[in-house]
């Protein structure tokens, strides 16, 4: 058994896991924080349910980005849709490094976006007609999750297996 060869695929899988785990955790925490605020508003004014639900879901995208990078990685190393590729240690480490941006930025931006979303829900609670503006503040945080997704996506795609 070629241990060095096995390690390569382990590193690559670890990359997929990092992307899905950290970005997913960021989204879970973010949606959770915004959800508390949304529940608070709906307790007093159920008519605002639809508006606060939309804002609550904004931090959920990081998890999807992590999932996307995870899928691409799995398909790249052949775990999805075919035989497992022969991944060298250096290639495995490259894939792991490529997955880090969306993992780390996904975690941090998910929490930050959740907090911003909770504050934005406060705007909707007091001034529902300002819903559009309220959406923009948490959406700004999204920019950095998208940038991280872009780099992870290009990097994983660019690595030759």
């Amino acid at each position, binding site marked *: 058994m070629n241990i060095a060869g096995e390690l390569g695929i382990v590193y690559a899988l670890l990359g997929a896991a990092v992307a899905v785990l950290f970005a997913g955790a960021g989204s879970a925490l973010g949606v959770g*924080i915004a959800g*508390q*605020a949304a529940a*608070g508003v709906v*307790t007093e*004014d159920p008519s605002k349910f639809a508006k606060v639900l939309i804002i609550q879901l904004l931090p959920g995208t990081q998890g999807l980005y992590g999932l996307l990078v995870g899928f691409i990685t799995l398909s790249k190393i052949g775990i999805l849709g075919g035989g497992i590729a022969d991944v060298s240690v250096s290639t495995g480490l490259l894939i792991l490094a490529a997955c880090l941006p969306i993992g780390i930025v996904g975690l941090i931006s998910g929490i930050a976006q959740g907090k911003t979303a909770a504050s934005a829900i406060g705007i909707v609670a007091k001034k529902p007609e300002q819903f559009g503006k309220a959406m923009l503040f948490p959406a700004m945080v999204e920019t950095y999750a998208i940038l991280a997704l872009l780099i992870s996506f290009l990097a994983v795609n660019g690595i030759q297996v």
Partner: protein
Amino acid sequence: MSNTKYTYAVARIRALEVSLFNDAFIEQLLSLGTAEQVLQAVMEKGWGDVSADSSMDAVLKREEEKAWEVIRDVAPDMSVFDVMSYPKLYHNLKAAVKEVYTRSGREGIFYDDCSIPGREMLRIVENREFSKLPGDMGRTAQEALEILLHTGDGQLCDITVDRAALEAMYAAGKRSGEPIIESYADTTVAIADIKIAVRAQKTGKSADFMRSAMAECDSLSVDQLIRAALSGADEIARYLEGTSYAGGADALRESPSAFERWCDNRMTETMKTQKYETFSVGPLLGYLIARENEIKTVRIIITGKQNGFSDDAIRERIREMYV
């Protein structure tokens, strides 16, 4: 993530802030002709209970209860609100000590919407079960009762309990670990000290009397305040000009009611920044103070109209609103 424990509570308060009275609505109330119309207008806004007594006292008392019900419902930790509940608790202690001494059997002298309601407080003081009282309250109760039993001096008993209440508020503010609660407690103690200084100056009380009535706080020096009070009313105002209560100096020169109004407005002004907080206890405290302020203002308008005050005279006394 522990700093998000107030997220739900603050969002609920945000939704409730919409129903707080603004300055424009207070102006509308002022323009109404009679006290009954004012009461009717606030009841149309949902004040009081539909099926219950619709007298002013009942409606305003119910509103105070509602404000506390909301806070009790949303706050994850009520201990930070000790600072707000101590005045009622210590009032109950004072009333119980005097009741035990005088045996007057008077009704309606206690607050029941606090952690130790009147009847229980009376039973504790009667049976000398001081250990059942929280913190230093037991020691205060024993001291106040002994003063009254040995000297019969009601005023000395009052200042002993009042000072203990201020010290308990100050300590609760420090204990809360929340800067806004700490600042509220400190300001409340400082304002109480200023009021004591003003009244003591007017009645010619000694430095020792003032020292036994005032409590220490961060924003004022009790010693300097006492020295100023001994030198005259102008000296008190002059001393305040050099502190963070400078605005109160002019109000103090104007009239006692102007100073009371300034105190409440300053508190509201301090709290207004809490309208933009999302993750701290500040908005809860801000809401509670806003409700108390609102209730006080409606009471001033109704009693002003009942006593035939002019709109201008009432306007001088009404407080700024939080929203």
